């Protein structure tokens, strides 16, 4: 199939359908209501279900229930909506149910605005809900990559029995880019018959719960979850190193849309004979600590520049990765303003 021009939100919907996720529960919020708009037409064509809930709280708890059956289920929302869904996320993680949450991030805090932001980094990676749980968080930077991440998210959700978050931003949700579905893997959900609650006729009932009143069982459950997160740390780290085939004096660290802007800055400086590196985490959890540490520890590496659309959130992970051994400068824009390549170039010049 040839490439098609799709809005990020439409691509999210289509990618989920192609991943075999035919159960979608959601509540509209800008800048991602087009996912629902797309799926309300698309789901009936493939025998799927789109149910518009009465609130984000309801939508996320529908996900909780539907995921218990082992079906591929997902929801999409934007920042304030994800906050409302965070209680359910904690429960779903505790219950070890596979599902996908897409956050098309807008600027906050509070109602904030409808424009792009990366202000939910800490919420996504440190948990918006309570307790020791982790989401595996994927951060795409193009519409094509968003499609690939959505499909990957369903595979990872099933593999780890854990909610996966795809964290895009308002710009990715709203812009149109060519999308190629031809390399899309066939959905390959594993056998879930050992735990899924699908009706217990003729077999022992399955029980899915998050209440552990016994301290021993509670501790055991937490350790089991932690072992799973360690497995993600060992096996699922993803990142892109751009123009880092050789050591660079200045290396930028950025994810998502911002990384794309930084790439243009790298290319612009290259034309002047100035070589800058860019490190782009693709998984925000598990964070690529080791690869970033290796780059930062090169002798020639003098300065890190962290660029984000927030007041400085991922910078905490950059500090953890590098143990503050090299100076780190932060450049960020807020309120829905996306930094331009020219601004980033100016920031780099200050460090040269």
């Amino acid at each position, binding site marked *: 199939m040839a490439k098609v*021009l799709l809005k990020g939100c439409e691509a999210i919907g289509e990618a989920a359908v192609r991943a075999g996720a035919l159960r979608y529960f959601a509540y509209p919020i800008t800048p991602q209501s087009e996912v629902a708009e797309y799926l309300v037409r698309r789901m009936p064509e493939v025998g799927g279900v789109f149910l518009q809930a009465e609130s984000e709280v309801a939508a996320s708890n529908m996900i909780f229930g539907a995921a218990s059956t082992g079906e591929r289920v997902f929801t999409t929302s934007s920042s304030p909506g994800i906050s409302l869904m965070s209680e359910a996320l904690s429960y779903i993680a505790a219950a070890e149910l596979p599902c996908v949450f897409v956050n098309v991030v807008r600027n906050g805090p509070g109602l904030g605005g409808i424009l792009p932001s990366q202000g939910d980094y800490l919420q996504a990676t440190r948990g918006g809900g309570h307790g020791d749980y982790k989401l595996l968080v994927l951060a795409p930077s193009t519409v094509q990559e968003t499609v690939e991440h959505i499909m990957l998210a369903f595979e990872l959700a099933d593999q780890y029995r854990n909610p996966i978050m795809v964290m895009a931003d308002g*710009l990715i949700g709203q812009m149109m880019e*060519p999308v190629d579905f031809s390399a899309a893997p066939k959905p390959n959900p594993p056998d879930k018959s050992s735990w899924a609650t699908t009706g217990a006729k003729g077999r022992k009932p399955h029980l899915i719960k998050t209440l552990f009143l016994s301290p021993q069982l509670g501790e055991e459950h937490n350790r089991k979850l932690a072992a799973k997160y360690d497995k993600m740390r060992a096996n699922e780290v993803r990142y892109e190193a751009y123009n880092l085939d050789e050591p660079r004096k200045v290396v930028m660290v950025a994810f998502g849309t911002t990384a794309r*802007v930084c790439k243009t*800055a790298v290319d612009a400086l290259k034309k002047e004979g100035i070589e800058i590196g860019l490190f782009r985490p693709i998984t925000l959890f598990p964070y690529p600590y080791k690869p970033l540490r290796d780059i930062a520890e090169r002798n020639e590496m003098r300065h890190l520049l962290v660029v984000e659309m927030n007041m400085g959130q991922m910078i905490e992970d950059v500090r953890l990765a590098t143990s503050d051994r090299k100076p780190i400068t932060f450049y960020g824009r807020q309120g829905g303003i996306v930094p*331009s*390549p020219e601004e980033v170039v100016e920031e780099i010049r200050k460090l040269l």
Partner: protein
Amino acid sequence: MQIEVKFAGFGGQGIMSAGKFLAEAGLEEGKEVVWIPSYGPEMRGGTAYCTVVVSEQPIGSPIINNPTHLVVMNRPSLEKFAPTIQPNGIIIINSSLIPITSERTDVTEILIPCNQIAIELNNTRGANMVALGAYVACSKVVSLEVLEKIIRQEFAKKPKFIEGNVAALKRGAEVASQEMEKAK
């Protein structure tokens, strides 16, 4: 080579569609494209703009502060965006609604009475296609034939709009070519 064109006007002028058709045509020609809307809190009838990037290379930043080209359908858009266009760029001005020019001497500026032409063609809502045709004739970002094919595809479900829009596209291109000749 990367072309960045901003289409700007007020809501309802078909700004977003004109941009989308161009992006579709670029894709059809095997190029890399991005279509970026202005999505902000706007009311109907307020300003609307979108930016289309067409490139031979993968496209980096979708944030374009200084596009190479501009197509403006109303006066506030011209006043706002004309100063941002790169030197040696192209500015297409809808002279039916814009009584002024950009006053820039370092760009190619083409005045096209888009609404008037659309009315002459009995297609009052086709001014955006006149502008698009004019723009493509000046910039040669994509071929007019591919663009026509895209229009036929896009309106496949509303066939009564096809011929009017194709005619508007072609007339816009024709008038722009004449204007380019005059400017030489």
